[in-house]
C-alpha cells in the first residue's frame, strides 16, 4: 500500500512523469484505437463481435517478424501483413463467419472465441511462446532532461497507424464499396433490395478488418513485443474502446483508444506492472457499468 501511495506522490512531485506516462500511453493507445476501429466496422456491418481481433493483430505481427528474419526490410512488413491477413480473413469469413452472421449473437461470439483459441495455439506451435520483436536501429528523442523518451521507431509506428487509418476512412467515404458497406451497415435488407451484394460486402469488410489488424500487428512487432497469447488482451481493449465510444463514432474511438492507453500506463505506474492486465479488464467492467447506468436511465437494457 505504501508502494501505491509512493507511486502516486511521485506523480505530484515530478509532473514530468505524468507527461511520460501519457506519451507512452498515447502511443500504444493509437494502435488499440486502430484495432478497435476494425472491430467496430465488423460489428456495425455484420453484427459480429469478433473476439479473435487481437489474434489477427498478433498474427500480422508474426508474418512481419518471420519475413524480417528472412532478410526483408521491416517496414515492408506492414503492407505485406496487410495483404496476408486480408487473405486469411477472407478464408475465415468464407469458412466460418458467413454461417454465423444470421444467428444469435452468442453464437458469433463463441465462434470467434474458438477461432481466437485456434489462432493463438497455431501461432504458439509455429513460433514458440517467447516474446518476439524486431529491433530497429533508430534513435530516441529525449525531452525534459531525459525524463520523457520517444523512440523514433515508436513515433514512426504511430504515424503509420495514422496514415493507415486515414486511408481507410477516405476509402469508406469516397469509394463505391465504402458506400455499399455503409449502406449495408444501416439496413442490410434494404441494401439487398437495392442490388448490393451483401455477401460480398460482408466478405470485404471482414477481410478489411483482418488486414487492418495485420498491419497494426506489423507495426506493434517493431515498436513493442508480440507473443502468441497476447491476443485476448488486445481483443478486450478493442471491446472496451468500442463499448465506450459507441459504433460509428470515429473521433470517439480515437480518443477512447488513446485514453485507455494512458489509463493503463497510469495503472501500471501506480499499482505495478503486474497489474497491467488487471487494469485493462477492470476498465472493461467499468465501461460496461457506466453504459448500463446510462441505459437504465432510459429504462433500456444493454444488448
Amino acid at each position: 500500500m505504501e508502494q501505491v501511495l509512493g507511486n502516486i506522490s511521485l506523480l505530484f512531485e515530478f509532473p514530468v512523469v505524468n507527461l511520460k506516462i501519457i506519451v507512452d500511453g498515447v502511443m500504444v493507445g493509437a494502435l488499440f484505437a486502430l484495432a478497435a476501429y476494425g472491430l467496430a466496422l465488423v460489428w456495425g456491418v455484420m453484427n459480429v463481435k469478433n473476439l479473435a481481433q487481437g489474434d489477427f493483430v498478433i498474427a500480422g505481427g508474426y508474418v512481419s517478424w518471420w519475413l524480417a528474419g528472412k532478410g526483408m526490410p521491416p517496414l515492408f512488413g506492414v503492407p505485406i501483413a496487410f495483404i496476408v491477413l486480408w487473405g486469411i480473413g477472407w478464408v475465415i469469413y468464407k469458412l466460418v463467419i458467413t454461417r454465423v452472421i444470421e444467428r444469435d449473437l452468442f453464437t458469433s461470439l463463441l465462434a470467434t472465441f474458438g477461432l481466437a483459441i485456434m489462432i493463438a495455439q497455431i501461432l504458439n506451435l509455429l513460433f514458440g511462446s517467447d516474446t518476439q520483436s524486431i529491433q530497429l536501429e533508430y534513435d530516441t528523442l529525449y525531452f525534459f532532461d531525459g525524463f520523457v523518451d520517444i523512440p523514433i521507431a515508436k513515433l514512426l509506428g504511430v504515424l503509420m497507424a495514422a496514415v493507415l487509418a486515414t486511408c481507410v476512412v477516405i476509402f469508406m467515404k469516397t469509394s463505391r464499396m465504402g458506400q455499399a458497406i455503409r449502406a449495408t451497415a444501416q439496413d442490410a435488407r434494404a441494401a439487398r433490395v437495392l442490388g448490393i451484394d451483401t455477401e460480398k460486402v460482408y466478405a470485404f469488410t471482414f477481410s478489411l478488418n483482418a488486414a487492418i489488424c495485420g498491419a497494426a500487428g506489423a507495426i506493434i512487432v517493431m515498436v513493442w513485443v508480440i507473443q502468441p497469447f497476447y491476443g485476448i488482451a488486445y481483443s478486450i481493449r478493442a471491446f472496451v474502446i468500442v463499448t465506450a465510444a459507441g459504433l460509428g463514432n470515429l473521433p470517439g474511438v480515437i480518443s477512447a483508444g488513446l485514453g485507455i492507453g494512458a489509463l493503463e500506463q497510469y495503472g501500471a505506474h501506480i499499482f505495478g506492472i503486474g497489474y497491467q492486465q488487471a487494469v485493462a479488464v477492470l476498465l472493461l467492467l467499468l465501461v460496461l457499468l457506466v453504459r448500463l447506468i446510462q441505459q437504465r436511465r432510459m429504462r433500456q437494457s444493454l444488448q
Partner: protein
Amino acid sequence: MTSIIDIQDVSKSYGGVVANAGVSMSVESGGITGLIGPNGSGKTTLFNSIVGYHPIDHGSIRFEGKEISKLPVQQIARLGLLRTFQQTRIYGAMNCVENMLISMPHRKMSFFDAFERNRSKDYERADVLLDFVGLYEKRFLRAGSLSFGQQKLLEFAMALMNEPTALLLDEPTAGINPTLINGLIDRLKRANTEFGITLFIIEHNMRVIMNMADKIYCLAHGRLLAEGTPEQIQNNQKVVDAYLGAH
C-alpha cells in the same frame, strides 16, 4: 365516475422529434376507452409511457391514484396494469397452456410459491380462459406455430390470466381476418363486463372502436385533438380533417 388512469400534461420527445406534447386524459374505471388518431400521432408512445417502457419528459401519470411515471415496467405490471403488444408477444417455444400458466399473477404469489408445481386449479383456470378465447382445442400446440390471429387471442388470454385491473390493448384487431373481428369484439366486451377489467384501446378500425367505447380520445401530431362519446367524435370536423388530411 372515478378515473383509474389519470394522464396529466404528458410530454415525450425522442431526439428532437416531439411524440407527445401536453397530453391529458383520464380512463374511466370499469369502462372501455378508445384512443384513435392518424399514423404517427403518438398513440403507441403514450401507451409505452403509461406502462413504463420509457420515462416521460414532463407530466404525471397516475394509476388508481398512485403516481407511476417513475416506475419500471415490472412494477407497473404488478400493480395490475397490463398491455398487449402491437406485434403480439407470446412465448413461442412453449405450448398454449404453459403460456397461460406462466402468466399467473406473480404479485399474488410469494417467493416460495415459485418452487411448487402448478396446481390443478391453475390448469383449470387456464383451460377456462383458453376456451373463452376459443383456443381450447389447440391448447397443446407450440405457441410459435399458431397463426397470427390465434397468437393475438393467446396474448389476450394470457393477459386475462394475470387478473389485471386495467388492460391497454394496442390495435387488437390489426391483422385479423375480418370475419373473426366480431368474435374478438364480443370477447373484449365480455372481459370488460364479466371480469370487470377496464379497457383502454388503440384502434384504427373505426367500426370496432365506435361500437365498443364509452369515450374516445383523438390524438394528432402528438397533441390531444378531441374527446367525447363515439357520436361526438364521429361528428367532429377536426377529427375528420385529421384523418383525411393526413393522406
